[in-house]
């Protein structure tokens, strides 16, 4: 059975109007059921890749192939609308896509339950912790059941413990929904723990210098992080990051 490619980057280069050469000849594919993580130092153009994938930026050269109709995009900040309750925030995208009210309510309730925010439907964002806001943001994206999920360093602002838990929950979602995932991070552990494949990026101009297949089966136990094979692979990723980051 041929694997269905959900997102494809072919020879993408990006130069900003101010002359910054952000991306140089970046090519990769993400198939349905694959979770690909791009790991790289701050400012290497990782977020630019996502913005180009989503159509928020236009590349200078190369071609992107992705269905943008129902694209899932999880931002660095939760970007919840402060005047909407959790339920109203989660319902927003279904509203923007004109889903019928009945379906909207069902999708919203399902998504809230899936991220474990039941009971907080009527809370406003200001009364939520950082982790809960991220969950609400995830739930909002989930309502669309997007075939492609883009994550822009979503857990960078939460504490280490919450981050580990959010990683596990993201994996559970992936196991259930089997979307094509493209995840941006600068945490090697996060990258290896989540992904089926890790791409290593270096900066100035941003380009992909190495690719590692992650052989561990899903569902992954939180204890995988302490497995020698996990440490070995993390070490390799770390070495190629350092090699490219002089």
């Amino acid at each position, binding site marked *: 059975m041929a694997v269905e490619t959900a997102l494809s980057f072919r020879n993408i280069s990006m130069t900003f109007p101010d002359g910054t050469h952000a991306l140089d000849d970046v090519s990769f594919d993400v198939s349905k059921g694959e979770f690909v993580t791009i790991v790289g130092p701050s400012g290497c153009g990782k977020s630019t890749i996502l913005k180009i994938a989503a159509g928020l930026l236009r590349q200078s050269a190369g071609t992107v192939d992705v269905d943008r109709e129902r694209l899932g995009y999880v931002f660095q900040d939760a*970007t919840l*609308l402060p*005047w909407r309750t959790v339920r109203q925030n989660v319902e927003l995208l279904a509203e*923007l896509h004109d889903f019928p009210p009945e379906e909207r309510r069902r999708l919203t309730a399902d998504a809230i339950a899936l991220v474990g925010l039941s*009971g907080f439907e009527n809370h406003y964002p200001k009364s939520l912790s950082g982790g809960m806001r991220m969950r609400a943001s995830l739930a909002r994206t989930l309502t669309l059941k997007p075939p492609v999920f883009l994550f822009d360093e979503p857990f960078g602002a939460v504490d280490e413990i919450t981050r580990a838990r959010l990683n596990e929950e993201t994996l559970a979602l992936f196991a259930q929904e089997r979307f094509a995932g493209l995840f941006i991070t600068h945490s090697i552990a996060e990258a290896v723990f989540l992904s089926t494949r890790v791409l290593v990026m270096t900066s100035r101009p941003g380009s992909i210098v190495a690719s590692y297949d992650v052989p561990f089966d899903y569902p992954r136990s939180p204890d995988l992080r302490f497995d020698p094979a996990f440490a070995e692979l993390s070490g390799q990723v770390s070495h190629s990051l350092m090699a490219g980051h002089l």
Partner: protein
Amino acid sequence: METTEAAETTVAARKSRMVSGVRRQVLPPFALGILLIGVWYFISYVVLDASRRFLLKPPHEVVRVGFLDGENLAEMMAGLWSSTKVAMIGLAISILIGVFLAVSMSQSKIIERAVFPYAVTLQAIPILAIVPLLGFWFGYQLTPRVVICVIISIFPIIVNTLFGLLSAQRGMHDLFTLHHASRWTRLWKLMFPASLPALFTGLRIAAGLSVIGAIVGDFFFGRGEIGIGQLLLRYANRLQGEQLLASIIVSSALGVGVFLFFGWLQERVTGAWDDTGAD
């Protein structure tokens, strides 16, 4: 179960905190008020000798003549009502025009660039300089008075509303862009709600200014329907110190009243979610 209990404890704690908070909030200004009334009595009875006491009548005289005398009170309330009416009509028109202009400016850079210098100029006009002109053009009844209120109160509404409309974060705009939101949807579901806290700040400022505009217009026209401004002028000319002070108190109360009203309205509308608020 546990969550409910926790919530109840929080509510109880919040209530007791509120009570002690009210005590801490109310007591100091109350004490200062008593002190100021004491100073007032001191000036009336000790600093001024009997022949010059008309310059500052003691507080109880102001209350007796200004507020407890039915005829004086009726005259003042009629004036107050006239000025309040003018101020509120002016404010309502300011809100309509100001919000409309701010929305237009938020939708088009060209409109913003075109309108902004004139909004600033409007703000810079010394209002007294054009009061005679407005009377000359529109007579001395309702129209020119309302125009004065609009001129004096529209700037804070335009500026604050525009600032609020443009305050939605970049990420939120990206979210709306990603999901193909129309211009109208973006305005209605993102920019307008985001503007509410700043809009209310503008409203509170504008409401106070509109009251000033109503009194200033009435004062300088010196004719037409009698408002609080003409009364102030008349009492001062006739050396009616008690009535003069009473109408100053009443007009200040009107200004404070509208300020508090819009504060209350803001709390009702945005209090539940606005995290940039006053506290």
